[in-house]
């Protein structure tokens, strides 16, 4: 996978993960181009399109479009499954996820993605393991916060 984008029906970017190095203005241009292209597609059309030398796989979940750019040799159908897996993880984590969750907790969405994919490839096929890792890291954070709160009030 070369990059993944999440954007709303109004074209607002909610998440962007790039697995290839590009300049900032190139990234902006690509995002703009793809958002317009995908938003103009009708619901009956198929989920794949060709763009430059890449294949774009996209799927709409409620008000969010999940869009991945894969290489010519990659399997489009399994990419759809990867997208679905990511949505399932977010759903489990946030409890019935909606766009607002992703807006207000964007950093957690990134963390979840980083536990699922690395360098554009899937690293863990077990839902349970991904959620376990995230939970453990959240726990670490919480422990630290408690610690620093205690220190701040002079109790630790």
């Amino acid at each position: 996978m070369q990059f993944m984008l999440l954007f709303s029906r109004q074209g607002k970017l909610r998440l962007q993960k790039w697995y290839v190095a590009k300049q900032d203005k190139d990234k902006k241009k690509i995002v703009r181009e793809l958002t317009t292209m995908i938003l103009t597609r009708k619901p009956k059309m198929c989920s794949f399109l060709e763009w430059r030398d890449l294949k774009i796989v996209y799927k709409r979940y409620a008000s969010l479009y999940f869009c991945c750019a894969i290489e010519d040799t990659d399997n489009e159908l399994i990419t759809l499954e990867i997208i679905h897996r990511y949505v399932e993880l977010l759903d489990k984590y946030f409890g019935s996820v909606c766009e607002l969750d992703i807006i207000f907790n964007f950093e957690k969405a990134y963390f979840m993605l980083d536990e699922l994919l690395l360098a554009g490839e899937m690293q863990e096929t077990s839902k349970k393991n991904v959620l376990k890792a995230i939970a453990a890291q959240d726990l670490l954070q919480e422990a630290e916060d408690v610690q620093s709160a205690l220190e701040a009030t002079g109790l630790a």
Partner: protein
Amino acid sequence: MPTPIRLRDLIRQIRAARTAADERSVVQKECAYIRTTFREEDNTFRCRNVAKLLYIHMLGYPAHFGQLECLKLIASPRFTDKRIGYLGAMLLLDERTDVHLLITNSLKNDMNHQTQFVVGLALCTLGSICSPEMSRDLAGEVEKLLKSSNAYIKKKAALCAFHIIRKVPDLMEIFIPATRSLLTEKNHGVLMTAVVLITIMCELSPDTLAHFKKLVPNLVRILKNLIMAGYSPEHDVSGVSDPFLQVKILRLLRILGKNDSEASESMNDILAQVATNTETSKNVGNAILYETVLTIMDIKSESGLRVLAVNILGRFLLNTDKNIRYVALNTLLRTVHADTQAVQRHRSTIVECLKDPDVSIRRRAMELCFVLINTNNVRTMMKELLAFLEKTDPEFKPICASKMFSAAERYAPGRKWHMDTMMKVLTTAGNYVQSDVVSNLVHLIPSSNELHAYMVKQLFRAISEDISQQPLVQVAAWTIGEYGDLLLQPDAEADDPLKVSEDEVVNVLERVLASNLSDIVTKEYAINALMKLSTRFPNSEPRVKSVVSIYGSHVNMELQQRAVEYHALFGRYDTMRAGVLERMPLCDIKKNMSSASLHNGVSNGSDEDLMPDDMPVSKAKPAQQQQQQQEQSSSGLLDILGGLSAPAPQPSRPPENNLLDLLDLGLPTDTSTMPTSLGTQPPIAPAPVNNVLDSLFTSQPIIAPALLKSDIPLITVFEKNGLKVDFSFERNGDQLTISLAANNSSSQSMDNFMFQAAVPKTFQLQMMSPSGSTIPPNSSGQITQIMRINNPTKQLLRMRLRLNYSHGGVEINEQSEVNNFPTSVWQ
């Protein structure tokens, strides 16, 4: 400084902004605040501020001033800080900024951290934003982690290595030893990432590919276990166990089995098993089947397996899910050339896909249809494609029309069907037809003599109703111009005999000329056609003349020039008009044009006029191509003959030389453009040329007499392998006429005989057409050819000869010099 606002409060504020300007002001205020806090080196809230900055960055605002802060966060001992810091690094830094080099040290430290999650963060970041330098620095650390006993770290290290290898392929060797053992793991995550790592190694290096070939049995075993193992809740997706891992393994098998029959052999069973056992009701199953099909097609699988694969694709085509149909069409397009027979079975399904609501599916179906056309199904296919052409989007019409044309040409069951089909294409595709189709059709029509009358009537009918479709009008105008006389002949057998008068025809052409719908190219066609009709329709001559003279003052230069010249043709050169406007002869330049259109469907000079500026009849552009080719070949000859240059050592292009020569002598010099352009006419069959020339000039001998009567002795200039060439001479002052006779005493005939000659610079050489190109065996016949040499300086005549012919299937090239010319020839 007051406590910085929380991230979610900022988000709420920004979202509450009503207008873009509002939003900008909120953001700018916050950015300024954040910048100040950064300067103050506040540790406590740095994390929060960077998080806010990242949100602002996602909205599209510049956030580069946060880069250094990310570094500070990464260096902090707190996990929370590191988490946000690394995220910031991944979002704000990329390889091109210099700042990222500073992370290298932090990364190194964190990769040796005791907490696995910190190691994970570092590996993740390295897998995202590493530059070649960073890769080199940290590859060793990654390799160490690859050997860790912790599965969590192992899998991340494997993907990090994958990324590094893609960036710097040279570093591959470091990771190879550790990789092999990865496949023995039970953990699916490690297995998967290991397969990915091995895949990239094999893709990048053929040596590594060979090294890993021995893994094929292991992979087959793993795949088998996956399928047979039964339900495993952890990895199950809709009833399929770990489809992601299955797909990755299948992909690696594809790479290992390519071009290797032994490896492919060992995979056959498992591939068949996967293909038959996978559940197809959900997308996951189909994803696996898709990968399996791709693998079967790529490796050296047995034919049964290939048929199975094509059948799977056929089933995909019937699937209600459009994504699956798309994927199937795509794959079929890629593999149809290898397994055409198998794909033919699914032809009807593919034709159905032409009517699919999704445009990308329609396009693929169209391309596939074109590949599948053969002599058996051409009629039905063309019918379907015509219906498709009618309804399709404008962007496909040109390609479709051009491809239909080439397909019709290749597989047409009969001339009439071919013409009819092309007419339908022209009327359906309207103005989207590319001009290469027009020119191809124009070359095609003369080739089928019996259909001239039919075609001209059909085309006339078409344009008398509607002149808006330019390509159709162009073809029709040309045809009417050429065969207008046939239009007048009554056609008793036709179901609907067309009774047409000269006036009606001229009306139509005039309308085309005058109409705003016609573009310039069409008008040029029309005026040419009208001109030709002036000879075909004797009664309409004055009318044509008046129309032509009107256009003599047309705004467009091209049209005006033609009109003026045609008007001149009516005037001073009326005697030549008939000859000039004769029927166009058949040309075989069609081959050049149709091959071009087959290959790229792009027009040869789209809107450019196909006809030269001053030549009314012939198509000079293709002829010019030929002319150029000729010139190239003649210069080649000069080179070969070693610099004995001559102004015109002509390779044998018989009629053209005739024309050039004879007309050169005959025509008045004002229309100096005429002879040269006539000379660029494509090779003409001898008969009409002779007619033309006979009416214009006293007839010149075209075919050389076998021997020239003269008192100069004849000489044998070449004798070898049964081929004997004699020269006989006739001298007329400075001009010498040589007649050569080529005889074949061998038992096999000599075909494609070509004679070329070169003389020193001071001479002028002209070659006439040979009597033929085949010398029959056993001296039963001969080829004769005339050469004219001008020798004003009375120099010693020398000549170099080049003879090419094929004898008994062997190509023979001979060269020789003639130095034994009798002195009476040149002195």
